[in-house]
């Protein structure tokens, strides 16, 4: 097991390094002096010289990249051009907001999708299956930001049940914080559930066709026991991977939902930095999104053998 984990970690490192290199060089692609870019439209020779030294601009490119990596490890992502604050101080609270949106959304999606998908696969080609699959296809065809807008229209404007836009941290005021998160979480969760249901159903059907299920049935196990004890755990393996991919992708990709509900998340921060051409913040956002994506996938892979013990030895 330790060896399996170590292999996975070793495999993730080059991916992460390459992705970080891409982020580093992307900003270097912009024409002009990188130091001036990082400083913004300010005429300040002293600051310029300081940044030039911070970026090690007098050194060759690979050395600059190494230097940048070392600073990353120290948590130093530079200084925001427009917001007068270190980039890292901006990223952490934004990341917390995004996580408080995305993690519950993925949990809710899984709680909907796993039972619905298993039942649909178990009752394949029945009316129930067709109904579940139709709903799932409908759900995954609706853009989450439009669903969010419609939720706002119905629950916020017409029914006046929930606050329309804004954010209160659930850590400060639990109920108020949650009331601001219900609609964004639901609009993300329903759509992701659509994707997951189809996958769970397909894996369930595949597992149901295997010999050991026939064996379990022949032993005289009740159908419910067959499903819960034999089908569900095996159908979970690909689902688990997909949940990881979804979570990793959403940590950076919930931009539009954050915009609809005016949540001060990571995506929102990145969009505002793009408008402001605040390159240090853009770079910082990309770093944290990439690190989050690679780490979540690594965690998914490390925990994968829980569902599929055979994978450990492969």
């Amino acid at each position, binding site marked *: 097991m330790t060896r399996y984990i170590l292999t996975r970690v070793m495999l993730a490192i080059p991916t992460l390094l390459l992705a970080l290199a891409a982020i580093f060089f992307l900003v270097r692609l912009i024409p002009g002096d990188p130091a001036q870019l990082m400083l913004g439209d300010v005429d300040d020779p002293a600051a310029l010289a300081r940044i030039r030294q911070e970026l090690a601009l007098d050194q060759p490119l690979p050395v600059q990249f190494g230097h940048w990596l070392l600073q990353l490890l120290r948590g130093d992502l530079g200084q925001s051009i427009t917001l007068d604050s270190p980039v890292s101080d901006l990223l952490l609270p934004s990341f917390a907001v995004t996580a408080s949106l995305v993690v519950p959304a993925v949990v809710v999606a899984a709680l909907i999708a796993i039972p619905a998908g298993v039942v649909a696969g178990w009752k394949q080609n029945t009316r129930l299956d067709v109904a579940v699959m139709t709903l799932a296809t409908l759900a995954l065809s609706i853009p989450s930001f439009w669903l969010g*807008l419609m939720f706002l229209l119905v629950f916020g404007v017409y029914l006046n049940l929930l606050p329309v836009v804004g954010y209160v941290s659930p850590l400060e005021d639990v109920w108020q914080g949650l009331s601001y998160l219900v609609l964004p979480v639901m609009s993300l969760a329903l759509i992701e559930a659509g994707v997951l249901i189809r996958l769970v159903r397909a894996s369930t059907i595949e597992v149901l066709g295997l010999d050991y299920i026939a064996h379990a049935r022949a032993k005289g196990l009740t159908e419910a026991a067959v499903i819960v004890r034999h089908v569900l755990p095996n159908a979970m393996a690909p689902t688990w991977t997909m949940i990881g991919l979804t979570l990793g992708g959403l940590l950076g990709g919930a931009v539009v939902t954050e915009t609809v509900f005016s949540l001060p998340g990571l995506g929102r921060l990145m969009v505002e930095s793009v408008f402001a051409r605040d390159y240090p913040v853009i770079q910082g956002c990309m770093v944290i*999104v990439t690190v989050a994506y690679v780490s979540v996938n690594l965690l998914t892979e490390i925990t994968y053998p829980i569902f599929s013990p055979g994978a450990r030895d492969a």
Partner: protein
Amino acid sequence: MREGRWMTITRQPNAIAGGVLILIMLFGAILGAVHTPYDPIAVDFFHRLTPPAPEHWLGTDEWGRDVLSRLLAGAVVSVGIAGVTALIATSLGALIGATAGFLGGWFDKVVIALMDALLAFPALIMALALVAIFSSSAFTPIIALSVAYLPSVVRVVRASVLVLRRSDFVDASMVMGNSRAITLLRHILPNTVAPVIVLATSLFGWALLAESALSFLGLGTPPPASSWGGMLSDSRNYFADAPWLAVAPGLALSLSLLGVNLFGDALRDLLDPRMQKP
């Protein structure tokens, strides 16, 4: 055999529904390019925010512009960008994936490492970064999304080439004295078409969604040209008074995506034997 398969696709209600929705979307895009009931960017202050009525089927927006005309003009942009993106990502990805799978060795290793690194960026984040560098135009989302979707195509094509490389007809082509390039182009690539078509359909859907998302964020198609995402974004300011502004473009986008998904599923059942129902 082929015709038999097409018969099965035309008998599936889902496939038909998907096909009809796609045809409506394409018809809308073509109509939008040729003729719209009103000028989509003409301002008319006497008819601001009028609800749907016989003169304006889908109402007018805050500038008095006809929503239906803007929807049609937006279809040209959204469908066009998504189509070109799917085309570029698919052809470039197929070429890279096939070469990597066929040649193997260090080239293959480098390609796979690069693609894994690319996968670490969500498509929208990649697009945002490129917009920050190249500023927003119709081309930026096309380039950004093509790059973002490249890895999925490369992986699929590479995987099927790895299988095909060991097949008899490839050996036969090499024995006949064909060069590796000819063998690859004439004998291997045509056999990867089926999974690539299925993937291209999904890519089109993803690109349509991503382009709308970018425009919604104000970083896609620059105004006053209309785009579905931009219309949705503008609608938020008149939410309570003019809900039709938010409903029309969202429905157009959702129905197009539904069509692509339904048709894509049917295509997958038809072309991908692995996924075929028993």
